[in-house]
């Protein structure tokens, strides 16, 4: 939405913006983060250190960031979207050439005193760039092949750069997050059907060719695919974790073993118990009640965002809102499917609950955009 459309008379301004914030969303996010702090406290054996307190402090910082972002008019965010996207690409290239290596992958960029993960930033800036792109684009051109291709490139370029780091989880989130915006913008469903069809066909072809004369991949590559899809085939690596994670999760029952009563000895073998596998601890200690309530909270966050998107006529605002909500959904859906043994293990944390700074700050920035869109929405004529 450009300044020209910025109808100052119908917009809240100054401190009155506080009243127009999407307060249900603020409350839901705080509740979700609360789950995280409680679980981190429990995993540390009833200690605020080393995880719970820093996590709480980071969430407060995230909230402040969200408010600041929210109070800036949404049209400002639209006009910086292109620049932010280009800067992100440059930073990703920077990682490629100057990045530092940690945990076997090159993800960090150190500029002076600042250590950052440009791949996290890319999750939000790609969505902003695509939303701005569709805001500019003539509605009639939305489904024309060339313009669809351009949009696809906007999503795929940062995803490929992240994939090279290598970080499959984040690359997937960026590409799919972009896909959500493209879909929401109204691109003809045929493109999506063709994409899904081609991908399914290719995968089927590759898998079917195994053992025949025209086998496409090498045998060892098939074995790798096998252990990726079924981690129990790799009993020393991922399989062990998923197996133990499922045992812990399943043993939680209806109401769980109780706060801090989870078999710590059992969970100690999970190297990521405070990050990617935190849902396991929640499900073990609070059972189905605890685990499903978090899932419901997450879905309510999605619901609130969708409602906000319905209620604005501004294209950029609603596309950004849907994109952020979609990414958020992908985060928790992939993570939960992973710890429940439904999806391969890729490094995706449970949003706002897993311990970790970068992901939380970037998500809160994203929700800041959602809030800004909500406050400054072009209200439908009443």
């Amino acid at each position: 939405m450009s300044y020209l459309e910025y109808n100052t008379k119908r917009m809240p301004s100054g401190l009155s913006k506080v009243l127009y914030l999407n307060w249900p969303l603020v409350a839901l996010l705080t509740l979700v983060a609360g789950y995280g702090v409680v679980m981190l406290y429990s995993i540390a054996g009833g200690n605020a250190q080393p995880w719970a307190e820093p996590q709480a402090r980071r969430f407060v910082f995230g909230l402040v960031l969200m408010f600041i972002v929210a109070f800036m008019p949404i049209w400002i965010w639209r006009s910086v979207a292109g620049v932010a996207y280009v800067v992100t690409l440059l930073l990703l290239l920077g990682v490629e050439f100057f990045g530092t290596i940690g945990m076997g992958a090159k993800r960090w960029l150190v500029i002076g005193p600042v250590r950052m993960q440009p791949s996290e930033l890319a999750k939000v800036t790609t969505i902003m760039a695509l939303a701005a792109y569709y805001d500019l684009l003539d509605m009639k051109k939305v489904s024309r092949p060339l313009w669809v291709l351009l949009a696809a490139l906007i999503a795929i370029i940062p995803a490929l750069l992240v994939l090279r780091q290598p970080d499959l989880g984040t690359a997937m989130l960026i590409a799919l997050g972009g896909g959500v915006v493209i879909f929401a913008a109204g691109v003809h469903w045929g493109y999506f059907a063709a994409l899904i069809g081609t991908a399914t066909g290719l995968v089927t072809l590759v898998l079917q060719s195994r053992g025949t004369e025209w086998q496409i991949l090498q045998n060892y590559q098939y074995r790798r695919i096998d252990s990726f899809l079924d981690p129990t085939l790799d009993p020393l690596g991922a399989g062990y974790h998923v197996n133990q994670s499922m045992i812990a999760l399943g043993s939680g029952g209806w109401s769980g073993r109780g706060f801090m009563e989870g078999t710590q000895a059992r969970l100690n073998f999970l190297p990521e118990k405070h990050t990617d596998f935190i849902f396991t601890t929640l499900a073990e200690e609070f059972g189905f009640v605890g685990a499903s309530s978090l899932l419901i909270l997450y879905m309510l966050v999605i619901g609130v965002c969708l409602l906000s998107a319905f209620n604005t006529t501004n294209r950029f605002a609603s596309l950004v809102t849907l994109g952020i909500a979609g990414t958020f959904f992908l985060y928790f859906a992939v993570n939960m499917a992973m710890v429940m043994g439904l999806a391969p293990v890729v490094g995706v944390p449970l949003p706002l609950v897993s311990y970790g700074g970068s992901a939380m700050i970037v998500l809160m920035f994203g929700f800041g955009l959602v809030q800004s869109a909500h406050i400054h929405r072009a209200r439908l004529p009443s």
Partner: protein
Amino acid sequence: MKRSEREKQFSQRMISRRALMLGGLQVGIAGTLMWRLRDMQLNQTEQFHLLAEENRINLRLLPPVRGLIYDRKGVLIAGNEQNYRVVMKRDDAGDIDLVLERLSQLIPLSDEDIARARHDMLRNRPFVPVTVAERLSWEEISRIAANAPALPGVTPEMGLSRHYPLEHDMAHVVGYVGPVSERDLAELEAPDPVLMIPRFQIGKSGVERVQENHLRGRAGSQRVEVNAVGRVMRELDRVEGSPGGNLHLTIDARLQNYALERLHGHSGAAVVLDVTNGDILALASGPSFNPNLFVRGISTSDFSSLLENEFRPLVNKTVQGLYPPGSTFKMVTALAALEDSVTDGQERVFCPGHMDISGHRFHCWRRGGHGRVNMTSALSESCDVYFYEMAQRCGIDKINAMATRLGLGVRYELPITSVSAGLNPSRDWKQRNRNAAWRVGDTVNASIGQGYVLTSPLQLAVMTARLATNKAVLPRLLRDPTESAERVAADLDLRPEWLRLIRRGMNETVNDQRGTAYSSRIVGEGQVMAGKTGTSQVFSITRAEREAGIRRQEDLPWNRRNHALFVDYAPMDDPKYAVAVVIEHGGGGSSTAAPIGRDITLAALHDGQVPPLASYPSPQRNRIRAEQEELEERLRQPEALRINRA
């Protein structure tokens, strides 16, 4: 973009419709997740609860048995011995410091051991067993077993660890194994999971390192159900690994032992080759070290004493040590001159004791000169001036080509670490590495194996084998015992008449009264040897030193004395063995290296045994007997060298 109201409404309708579709999809996925959660936590919870409470599945890696290494006759060089050890797992131990403290009251554990165990446990995943102590006695193991309830997570285990029964003898050839380091892991492309077991050992040097993949074998795994206190309830499944492959070296352990002990007191190397097939029968570098120290984890003081030793025990001087070959190189110069037809070999050259070349005086080692010498006498009396003359006639290019043909300056493909190529200098080499043009003086220096020329003892042995056979003999260290030992090398195509001259020179070196190695001759039918001495300068005696009265090598400090070299082959009429000996700072080839070369050659002719006195010239026998008695005390007992191949 400014849009019309109609367009806005269209856009909004489209977005709302798509958002609804997305929302529906999301609700569907969330529903699936919820259903799965309900299924696991409500329907199957009993089953998971049972798994969690009563039993847990434990995965154990079964480390493969490392392949054995034998000598050519089946004497064990590297084996595995039984070893009781204690392993500990972090997730079963709970408070690891407490358990370690209790453990240290039962068995001797140094602070270093405890720190290492703690570090290993914290670094690895909690379910990975970490070795806390090794090589425990049966009593210590029993004490631990008796106190098991107070030691959660601690299990006594019996395992195999590498052992080198021949200790020092094979250290440089076979190398040793040691724990996997971070650097080892980084070098490997797809690390075997078994390497992640703490203190799993892999080859660190020598054959153990180069043949790692062959020797290691494949790990098996075992999934067991254990109860809460860690007792194995039942085995769920088991994947058998496969043991590593065995290796058979061409080395004769007895001869190797003899050669190494014969080098005792010196810093040097001795190589024995079977000239018929290139088998390396002995590859001795003295002094050596005990590889078992490295397997157990060498102490800092032991290691620094090895590092600081002036005789450099850690260096494999046979392949890694590079020395100016000195006069042993003269056969190369002679052959180059013959090939270039600049002499017929009979022609005599006058040696006044020196030669002036482009304003610089080059001396012969005999200050008074040799008088008129032909090729044969120039070799046997080791006249330098003759070769200065020949080298100027044929030039460095011919010498360089002949040296390459005889196997110098070539890196041999051997399954041991740090094999050097040596240096066979050429014009091109000097231009590239020294950025200077080749000069006549360089050729003159090279003609007597000084200047830039550098060779390893193994290369000298190969050169000698090639001279003895006229075949392009290539050394080998591994053999397949099922295959025939015969191996025919390509022809070297040196003219027989040239080789006759060279061999006659080498014969007279040892067996003619005027030869430089006459005192090291062998007597007795069918075991006469032919050879060549060499003395290569490391530092020249300075004028100041000469004026101070230093004229003899013995007066110089050890590390400034000349290197002593000797190469030979035997028996002369039907060559079987080629030997090269290099004694660092030994003083002189004929005085130091030749007697050692003779003894090792004789040992090779007598199956590695101490040679009979009858092989020595009678005036020397008393002295030799005394030397042999002293040597026999150090030699390995026959039972240590018994054949134990299955």
